[in-house]
Every structure is written in structure tokens, then in C-alpha cells.
């Protein structure tokens, strides 16, 4: 939502990031039975001041990708580069220092706030831990954070259970803002909220991005929410990005068969559209990441799949100046 001109310089770069989890059976004598390739070769650039939407169904690896960016899990391969510094190669102390620039907001505000800490303690902790300000300045800073997210500073002595879901998500956002990060990664921040509350949180996030020149990675499964807030959208399927481009473009004119199905599956809140449109109904469920199909991972559900789709993994290739699509049959569809 910020000016296009501020979008030129990259702040975060993912280079062929892979996150594989071993699967073992047995307790004493662990047998290695397979590997879940949760994130399997993601290359992506996040620009300064940009909102990047990350969409996909459950199990596609979008949350794991967020955790990989945050370095909450050790990466299997590839590099996460923040302003020229490679986080995957950094020491613990370096990663610790960089954490200040990268903050996360989680889906469930009921589970991500410590129920035994008052809001004050929750917001003061990062300030004191990272020595952001003098201890004497903490109360003023906490009050300011409360105001920034639209809560009355007098509420700081309360505990999380005394707040509604939307207010709790505001507190979680305030906590993420406490260290003045450059990037916020929000993992399904509005999925647990009612429509009217969801709108409040979306407005708040959009406003903060604009005012503080933040970069935001917005992870969601709801395309209409993503379209509303994002500048660009990346669509994930089984650990890989299958389509990337400007948000409105991708959602209004999807190119990859999976994105097309995803867009057509969203129920429109308009009976006329619902009656007249052709819905693409995919057969089957998303495949298990433990045993992904050969070739293009989407081919067993794809209405346009041919023999070549079973053989080769399609690369994410440029489709016009702003878009990238990973489909072998792109030119033919």
C-alpha cells in the first residue's frame, strides 16, 4: 500500500531455502522412514515497505517458511539474507541481534500471549531483554505502544483473559512492534477472528506498515483478505511457490491451474456471481508432503495435466515483467 518507489530495494532475500524434517519410527531404535519436504526450494525477495501475501492450503509449508525466516528452526539448505547478512550462516549471537529486526505475530492470540503476565509485563519484557531503552523509560514506551495499536494505556495492568480476541491480537501486534522491527511476519493473524473484528486488525496492520515503513509477510489461506492487504502475492503448493506477482493481478487473472482453482473455490458474497460462475472443483485432497507426486506436485489434481507434467518439475519462470509462474503448460493454456 506504500508508494511503489519505495519498493525497489530488497530487505530480505530467500535463496533456494529448503526445510526438510526427518520422519522416524520407533522409540529406542529409530528407523528413518522418510523426509517431509515442508519447504522445498523457495527463492523470494521481500522489498522494503512491501506487504507480501503468502497463500496456500494447510500443509503447503507457509508456516514452516515463516519459521525458517525467523530462524526458529535450523534450515536444511539455502540462505536467508537480511540486509546483506546471511542468517543461516550466522552465530547464535548474530541471530539474536538480528531478531530485533524480525518479529512475528501468530494466529491464535489466546495461545501466543502468556496468561500469567499482565499486558505491561508482556510488552516490557522485549524492551528490557534487548535493552532498547532505559528501565525508567519503559512505562512511557509501553503506554505509547498501547496507543499505537489502539488500546487505552490504562489497560496495561490487566491479564490477557480480560481482553477479547481482537484486543488480544492488538496486544500481540504491540509486542511485535516493541523492538521497532523492520519486518513483521504475521502468520494467519485474522483467521481466528470474526469478520467485523478481522476488518479492524487488517486496517491496523495496513496503517502500521504505511506509517512505520515496515515490510510485512502476511500469511493466510483466505485470498480475499490477502488481496486486500498485499502488494504482491506468492502462492504455495506442497513446499514450493507456484505463482508470484502483484496481488490484484494474480487473484483477478490467475495463471497457474492451482491458483485458478483456489480463486474459483472462494465463495463470493454475491448470489448473482455464485449462480453464474463456473467453479473449478479439484478432485481429491492435497497430497501428503511425505510422499509427494513425481514431476509437478499438482499434476494428480490438475485438470490440464499431461504426461510431461509427471516427468519434470516445473521451474518458477518469468511470465511477463512482474509475474512468475511454475507450470510446464503455461504457454498452451
Amino acid at each position, binding site marked *: *500500500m506504500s508508494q511503489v518507489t519505495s519498493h525497489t530495494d530488497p530487505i530480505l532475500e530467500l535463496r533456494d531455502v529448503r526445510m526438510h524434517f526427518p520422519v522416524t519410527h520407533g522409540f529406542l531404535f529409530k528407523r528413518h522412514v522418510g523426509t517431509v519436504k515442508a519447504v522445498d526450494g523457495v527463492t523470494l525477495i521481500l522489498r522494503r515497505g512491501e506487504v507480501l501475501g503468502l497463500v496456500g*492450503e*494447510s500443509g503447503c509449508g507457509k508456516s514452516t517458511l515463516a519459521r525458517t525466516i525467523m530462524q526458529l528452526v535450523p534450515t536444511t539448505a539455502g540462505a536467508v539474507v537480511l540486509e546483506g547478512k546471511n542468517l543461516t550462516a550466522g552465530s547464535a549471537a548474530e541471530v539474536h541481534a538480528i531478531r530485533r529486526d524480525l518479529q512475528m505475530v501468530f494466529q491464535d492470540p489466546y495461545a501466543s500471549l502468556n496468561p500469567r503476565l499482565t499486558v505491561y509485563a508482556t510488552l516490557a519484557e522485549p524492551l528490557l531483554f534487548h535493552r532498547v531503552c532505559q528501565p525508567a523509560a519503559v512505562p512511557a514506551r509501553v503506554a505509547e505502544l498501547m496507543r499505537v495499536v489502539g488500546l487505552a494505556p490504562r489497560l496495561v495492568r490487566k491479564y490477557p483473559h480480560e481482553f*477479547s480476541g*481482537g484486543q488480544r491480537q492488538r496486544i500481540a501486534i504491540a509486542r511485535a512492534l516493541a523492538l521497532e522491527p523492520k519486518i513483521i511476519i504475521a502468520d494467519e493473524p485474522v483467521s481466528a477472528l*470474526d*469478520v*467485523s473484528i*478481522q*476488518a*479492524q486488525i*487488517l*486496517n491496523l496492520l*495496513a496503517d502500521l506498515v504505511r506509517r512505520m515503513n515496515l515490510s510485512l509477510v502476511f500469511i493466510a*489461506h*483466505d*485470498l*480475499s*483478505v490477502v*488481496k*486486500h*492487504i498485499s502488494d504482491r502475492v506468492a502462492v504455495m503448493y506442497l513446499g514450493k511457490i507456484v505463482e508470484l506477482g502483484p*496481488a*490484484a493481478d494474480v487473484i483477478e487473472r490467475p495463471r497457474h491451474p492451482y491458483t485458478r*482453482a*483456489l480463486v*474459483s*473455490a*472462494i*465463495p*463470493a*458474497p*454475491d*448470489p*448473482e*456471481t*455464485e*449462480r453464474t460462475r463456473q*467453479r473449478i*472443483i*479439484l478432485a481429491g*485432497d*492435497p497430497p501428503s508432503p511425505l510422499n509427494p507426486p513425481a514431476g509437478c506436485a499438482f499434476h494428480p489434481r490438475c485438470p490440464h495435466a499431461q504426461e510431461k507434467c509427471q516427468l519434470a518439475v516445473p521451474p518458477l519462470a518469468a511470465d511477463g515483467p512482474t509475474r512468475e509462474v511454475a507450470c510446464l503448460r503455461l504457454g498452451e493454456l
Partner: protein
Amino acid sequence: MALLTVTDLRTHFHTRNGIVRAADGVSFSLERGETLGIVGESGSGKTVTGYSLMGLLPTPPARIEGGTALFAGTDLLHCTPREARALRGKRISMIFQDPMTSLNPYLRISEQLIEPLLIHEEISRRDALADALAMLESVGIPDAQKRLRLYPHEFSGGMRQRVMIAMALITKPELLIADEPTTALDVTVQAQILDLIKKMQRELGMAVIFITHDLGVVSGLCDRVQVMYAGRIVETADTRALFHSPRHPYTRALQRSIPSLQPKGTELYTIPGLPPDLSKPIAGCAFAPRCEHATARCTATDPALADVAPGHTQACLRVQAGEL
């Protein structure tokens, strides 16, 4: 004659913090084969309405304080347990949001599928199993013969929801109550399940009460929609009228807060404040404190549903007075 007529249903929860009026004077009716959507946010009373009809609420704390729900001559709210059992799972079925917690993890799905048949019909185990197989095939489970022997954890979320639908429909009910059946599913799977519900409804000619918070789901599926707020119905209309000319300020506000209806980059419309605490008495219209059109009269007078057009009723005093 209507299949189901609910009149002034009042379900209250007696808790330590007071009486929560979860459903407070809900009245509606449903024709045979009709699909009725009940839409509302958390705590609006939509699920409690469904559970009250099925008699599934734990008593205490819940108590049906009043009202009637006539289904084919039987009052669901006041019938004997024996009468309720004869209807429930036979002529009225329900499906739930979370198929993992509503299937029994210890039983093969074959056992769970045939249970309603063995209870309600004079049928041999062998015939019941044949019916179960046919049902599983018609809800689109591939390789059904083999899968009958599996346990719920061996199915994916979408497949479990199909199993639950098969279980609910195996007795060919006249009414299906669906409580957020697609909320826990991915959009592509949600599209499959909605398609399946439509298909089964056509085949069996049953009526459906579809409870959801998602206005999008309702628009493609339902004939008629009613919007609930704070335990009451605030607006009922056929789907087209509700989406194209909503009258009640809450319905309008709800529609305006959906991101997909708004151009990108614009600020989303938000409803200020929070839904009311239902354990405290509400003076006048429950939505008045959040309503941009509220006047002094709104907090003084209890609104009642009244027709604004044939088949379109709503409960805003100012709309009824012709001021909005």
C-alpha cells in the same frame, strides 16, 4: 405446511456469572426441501439455536426457557426423550464443524455408519453394511469398500467430513442441520463439500439449516438467510434480497466489512465496539451501542421483527419508521 416451525425459542445458560441469554426469542419456519442459512458472529446464538433443536445442550447449565419447535407435529423442545430419539438421527440429522471430534476414534467407520440404521430401522447387519457402502460411494469416497474398515484417523479432514455427511444422511433425513461444516477445511476442499451437500440435498429432497459465519458460503447455497445478533434474529430475507438490499444496519455493516467487496487499498469499514455481554440485560436494540444510526429511541424500545417487503423482515426501529 411448514416442515419446521420455531416460535419464540429462548435458551439461557445459568452460569456463576449470571444468566446468559444465548438465544432469546428466535422464531422462524422452514419448508420441505428449503435451505435456510443462519449467519452471525461468535456468540450470536446461531449454534445454540441448532443445538436446542437437536436437544444436544447439556442441562444444566443450559435451559430451554420457552418456545416451541414443531417438526411434523412433534414439539422438539418439549417431547419425551423417547419421542426425541425416534426423530433424532432418523428424520433430523446434524453435522458438525470438527469431524475429528465428532467421530468416535475407537470405532471403524463401518460401525459408525451403520449405527443409525441398526437403531432406527429393521435391517440386518449385512444389508446395513451394503447401505453404508453405497452411501460412502455417493459422498465421493474412492475405494469405499476398503475404506469402510478404516478408523477416523486414517482419513484426511475433507474425507472425514464426507464420512460424517454419509453418517448423517444414511437414514435419509427430512432435515439436516449443518453447523459450520466447512469452517475447518481448506477452500478447495470446502468447495467440494458444499457441492456435495447441494448434490445430496437434490437427491434426497431434504431441507437444510446451514449455520455459518461466512456470508460467501451462504450466498451460493441458501434460498433464504437469517442474520442473528446477540441471541436474536435481526433480519430474514431470501438470499438475493439480503445481499442486494439489506435493510438492517447490522447486516449492512457486516457486508461492508468483508474484504473482497472492497477495492484494494481502501480502509475496510469496521463496526466499532464489541458484541454485548449477554449475561447483562439489554435495553432496547442490542446493536444500538455499535450502530451509527442509533437514536435515543433505539435504547428505550425493544425492536420486533416486521415486514419491509413480502418475505423480508427486519428488526430495526428506524427502518420500520421509514427513517433509513
